[in-house]
C-alpha cells in the first residue's frame, strides 16, 4: 500500500499515472468485449466437444487481463487476491491431460466470475477514459485561452468551451479559468475514479468467502499431512537414536559392571580397568543423549526463550554472526521451536553451501507476525529445488501458516525472510 502523496508535485505525478492506467483499463475494456465473445463461444462449443482445444488458451488470455486489472486495483490501494484453484499436478501430455485441464477450468467458479466481469467490464471499464478525457478537455481550454481561439474565431464561429463561447480575450480568459477548474478536477478525480473501478474489480475478481474457505481447507489439509509426516519421521529418528545409541550403551555398561563383579575377587587390577571402561561408556551415553535432546528441543530455548536461543546459535557458529533479536514476550513453544530450527538450518546452509563468512540474524514481532531475517555474504544462488533442505524448512513453516522467502542472486548476498503468525492457528500471513 503506497502512501498518498500530499505535495502538488506528487499529486500531479499521481494523476498523470492514473490517467495512463485508466487509459489502459479502458483499452482492456475494449479487449474484454473480444475475449468475452471468444471465450463464451469456445465454452459453448466445448459442450459439443471441439471448443476445448482453444479453451485453455482463451482462459490464459482472460486470466492475464484479469491479473493486470488486479494489479491496477492494488495500485489504487485495493488489494485483490487471485481466486483460481491450483492447476492439477502432472498433467499428461495427451488428450486426457488436455481434457483434465478443461475440466479444471470449467469447474472453477472463478472462471465464470471472470466471464461475468468481462461482460460488465465492456461498459464499466470505459470509465478508465475519464481521466484522459478530463485532461484533454483542460488542455483544450488552456490552448484556447493562450490565443488559439483567434484563428478559430476568424473562421466565423467562436469555439464553445464549457458554457463559454470563446470569441474575445475576456471570454478566452474565462475559458482559461474554467480549464484550470477542469485541471484541478482531473488531479482530484482521477484517483477516485480508479479507486471506484478497483472496488468493482475486487467485487468480481477477488476471492469470494467460499473460495477463501476452500483455499484455507486445502492449505490446512496439505500442511497438516506435512506436519504429521514430519512428526512421524522425527519420532522414528528419536526412537532409532535411543535404540542404537543410549540404550545400547546402557546395556554394554550393565555387561561391563557384571564383568567387574566377577573379576573383583580374583583379578582386582582387571576389575579396575573394566570400571574405567564403564565410566567412559557412561560419559559417551550422556553425550549422545545430550545431542539427542538438543535435536528435540534445545535446552537454551526451554530456559531462555527464542531471542537468547538465537544468540546462543550465533555464538556456537564458526561464522561471524551478529544477532539482533527484539522479542519481548515468550511465544508459543511450537512457534519458537520452528523458528529456531529453521534459522539453525539456514546458518548451517550459509556455512556449508554458501561459503559465507558473515551472517546477520534479525528477529522482531510486528502486528502479531514474527519476522526473522537471515542474511549472509556467501555466493548466493540458493534455490529451493537444490535439495539444500530449504523445501523442508518451507514445508515445516507452512504448517504454522508461515512463509519463507528467498532472495539469493548469484554472487550473493542471500537474504532469507521468515514470517510466522505469533499465535498458533491464526490465518495466513500473506498470500504467496
Amino acid at each position: 500500500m503506497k502512501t498518498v502523496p500530499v505535495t502538488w508535485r506528487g499529486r500531479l505525478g499521481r494523476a498523470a499515472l492514473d490517467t495512463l492506467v485508466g487509459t489502459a483499463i479502458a483499452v482492456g475494456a475494449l479487449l474484454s468485449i473480444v475475449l468475452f465473445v471468444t471465450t463464451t463461444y469456445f465454452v459453448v462449443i466445448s459442450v459439443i466437444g471441439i471448443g476445448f482445444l482453444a479453451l485453455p488458451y482463451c482462459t490464459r488470455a482472460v486470466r492475464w487481463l484479469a491479473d493486470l486489472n488486479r494489479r491496477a486495483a492494488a495500485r489504487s490501494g485495493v488489494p485483490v487476491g487471485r481466486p483460481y484453484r491450483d492447476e492439477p499436478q502432472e498433467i499428461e501430455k495427451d488428450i486426457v491431460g488436455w481434457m483434465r485441464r478443461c475440466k479444471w477450468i470449467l469447474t472453477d467458479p472463478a472462471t465464470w466470475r471472470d466471464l461475468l466481469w468481462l461482460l460488465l467490464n465492456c461498459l464499466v471499464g470505459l470509465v478508465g477514459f475519464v481521466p484522459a478525457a478530463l485532461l484533454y478537455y483542460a488542455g483544450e481550454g488552456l490552448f484556447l485561452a493562450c490565443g488559439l481561439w483567434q484563428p478559430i474565431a476568424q473562421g466565423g464561429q467562436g469555439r464553445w468551451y464549457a458554457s463559454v463561447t470563446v470569441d474575445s480575450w475576456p471570454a478566452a480568459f474565462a475559458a482559461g479559468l474554467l480549464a484550470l477548474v477542469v485541471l484541478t478536477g482531473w488531479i482530484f478525480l482521477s484517483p477516485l475514479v480508479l479507486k471506484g473501478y478497483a472496488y468493482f474489480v475486487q467485487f468480481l475478481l477477488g476471492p469470494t468467502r467460499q473460495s477463501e474457505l476452500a483455499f484455507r481447507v486445502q492449505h490446512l489439509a496439505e500442511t497438516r499431512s506435512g506436519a504429521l509426516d514430519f512428526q512421524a519421521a522425527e519420532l522414528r529418528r528419536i526412537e532409532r537414536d535411543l535404540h542404537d545409541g543410549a540404550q545400547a550403551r546402557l546395556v554394554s555398561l550393565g555387561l561391563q559392571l557384571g564383568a567387574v563383579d566377577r573379576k573383583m575377587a580374583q583379578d582386582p587390577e582387571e576389575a579396575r580397568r573394566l570400571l574405567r571402561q564403564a565410566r567412559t561408556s557412561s560419559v559417551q551415553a550422556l553425550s549422545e543423549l545430550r545431542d539427542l535432546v538438543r535435536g528435540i528441543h534445545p535446552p537454551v530455548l526451554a530456559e531462555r526463550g527464542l531471542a537468547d536461543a538465537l544468540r546462543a546459535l550465533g555464538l556456537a557458529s564458526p561464522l561471524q554472526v551478529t544477532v539482533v533479536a527484539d522479542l519481548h514476550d515468550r511465544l508459543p513453544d511450537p512457534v519458537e521451536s520452528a523458528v529456531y530450527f529453521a534459522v539453525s538450518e539456514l546458518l548451517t546452509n550459509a556455512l556449508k553451501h554458501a561459503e559465507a563468512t558473515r551472517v546477520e540474524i534479525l528477529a522482531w514481532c510486528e502486528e502479531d507476525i514474527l519476522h526473522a531475517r537471515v542474511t549472509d555474504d556467501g555466493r548466493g544462488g540458493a534455490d529451493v529445488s537444490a535439495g539444500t533442505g530449504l523445501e523442508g524448512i518451507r514445508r515445516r513453516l507452512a504448517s504454522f501458516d508461515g512463509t519463507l522467502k528467498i532472495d539469493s542472486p548469484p554472487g550473493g548476498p542471500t537474504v532469507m525472510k521468515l514470517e510466522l503468525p505469533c499465535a498458533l492457528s491464526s490465518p495466513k500471513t500473506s498470500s504467496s
Partner: protein
Amino acid sequence: MRVVLAEDLFLLRQGIIQLLEAYDFEVAAAVDNGTDLAAAIAEHRPDVAIVDVRLPPTFTTEGLQAALRSRREQPGLPILVLSQHVEQMYARELLADGTGGIGYLLKDSVLDDEQFIDAVRRVAAGGTAMDPAVVAQLMTSHSRDEPLAALTGREREVLELMAEGCSNTAIAQRLTVTEGAAAKHISNIFTKLMLPPSSDSNRRVLAVLAYLNA
C-alpha cells in the same frame, strides 16, 4: 572447606554430597530450588557454592541467576555451576565480572571424582574451571581468526587446557611433556596472541577467555 549445594535431583544431590564428604568437604547445606539457595548462601557464607543451572520453581536458569545474585551481594563468592549442557552465553554471564572464582562444568564431570574435586578446590581458591566443551566451542567459533590460525596444533592443545583453568603442571601432565616444554608453549602462545604474560594461573585463564570471548 564448606560447601553449599543446589541440585534438584535427589539421587544426584546425594551422590555429590557423598563424593564431597569422601574428600573431607563439609556440606553446610544442600537445597533443591533457587529461593532456598540464596538463603543458604546468605546464612552459611560457604567457601564455594555448587549450583545446578536449571532449578525449580521455574526450571529455566533459576540456579544460574540465584548464584549470580548472591555473588553480587558477596563479591568474589566462588561458584561452580553444573549443567546438563554447556552454553557459551552462560559462560560469558558467569565470567562477566572478571574476578575469577568461577567454574562451569557438565554434570558428567562428577563421574571423574578426582578431576571434579580438583575443579572444586581450584574454584574455591579463586581460580577458574571451564568445561572442555565450552572451550572447544569458543575455539571453533574463532577458528578462522588470524592470530589463532597462527598457532601450531600443540599450541592449540595447550591453549585449550589453559582456558579450562589448568596450571602449568597440570598441562604438562595432561599432554605428557615436561613442565619446561609446557611453559615454553605458553610463552609462545602469549606472544602470538599479544596477551600480557602472567604467572598467576587465574589471571592467565581470564586473559585467554577474554581473548576468546572477544
